[in-house]
């Protein structure tokens, strides 16, 4: 399968070999991953709350989405890069880890739901009913919590 070939190539690459040998890389990259999690999680929670009419209730949801977009993207890129480096310390271990597989699937779904939420927030300015916006918000929140739980489980499996 293409994914297995990719993970195997990563394990044999110069970067993969260097990551595997280094003692403190994992600890440092893990801390960066955790810091970005706090930031991205905060952004998601504030955005979802705004879409559900909590917290920033008097502001248009689109203002929250647009205002936090740079922070969301910064947090996401940091998480993806640090996450890829963590995988590099032992790619095949992650490839065969069920929690890691579930996390990657949930991540794709969470990103899609967040994109949908941002789209609905843009529409909310013109239209009255907010049902789609609220569903998008609730689904995003559940999926992002799933991503976090999947990540926590990787080490326990």
């Amino acid at each position, binding site marked *: 399968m293409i994914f297995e070939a990719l993970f195997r190539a990563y394990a044999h690459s110069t970067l993969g070999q260097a990551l595997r040998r280094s003692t403190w890389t994992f600890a440092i990259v893990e801390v960066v991953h955790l810091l970005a*999690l706090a930031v991205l999680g905060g952004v*998601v929670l504030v955005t979802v709350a705004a879409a559900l009419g909590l917290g920033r209730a008097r502001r248009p949801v689109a203002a929250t989405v647009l205002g936090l977009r740079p922070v969301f993207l910064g947090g996401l890129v940091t998480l993806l890069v640090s996450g890829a480096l963590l995988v590099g310390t032992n790619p095949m271990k992650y490839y065969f880890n069920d929690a890691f597989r579930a996390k990657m699937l949930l991540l794709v779904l969470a990103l899609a739901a967040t994109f949908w939420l941002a789209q609905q927030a843009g529409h909310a300015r013109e239209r009255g009913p907010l049902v789609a916006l609220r569903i998008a918000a609730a689904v995003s929140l559940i999926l992002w919590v799933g991503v976090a739980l999947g990540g926590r489980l990787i080490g326990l499996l």
Partner: protein
Amino acid sequence: MSLLFDLCRSIYDTPLATGIRESEVAFPVIETLHVLGLALMTGTIAIVDLRLLGWVFPDEPASDIADQLLPATWAGFAVMAASGLLLFGAEAEKLYSNPAFRLKLVLLILAAANMLAFHFTVYRRVAIWGRARKTPRGARIAAALSLALWAGVIASGRMIAYFHGRAA
């Protein structure tokens, strides 16, 4: 042995702490709650700090952003404090001498002191500067310190596990 160590040992020996330590599920579950609460508390703190630095929501009053997010920050704090105390109790005797844990406590105290200092000085005059894009220098310094100190709290918290073997 010191009074603090005796206190840690007494907490460590309580039935609740022993129960958490000896359960296979309790510790990881509480730890997971501790990490989820992290986003609620420090994530919202970071957004307020970024507004004070003028990097997000520059057109909205800083006091509005703080008022909107503060309830979430306090809810996150409640989760962090409750789960943190339970995790501490379960490992109190080992944590007493853990350098990462000691550093985390010092950074927590500094983060709280920074918050109080900001609240009782610059923030008292927020009615004057709250609407401005550019906040006073004191507010920007407090925000930068807050980001650095909370990042330090998270980093040292994660490092606790790496120093566990060496506990005396």
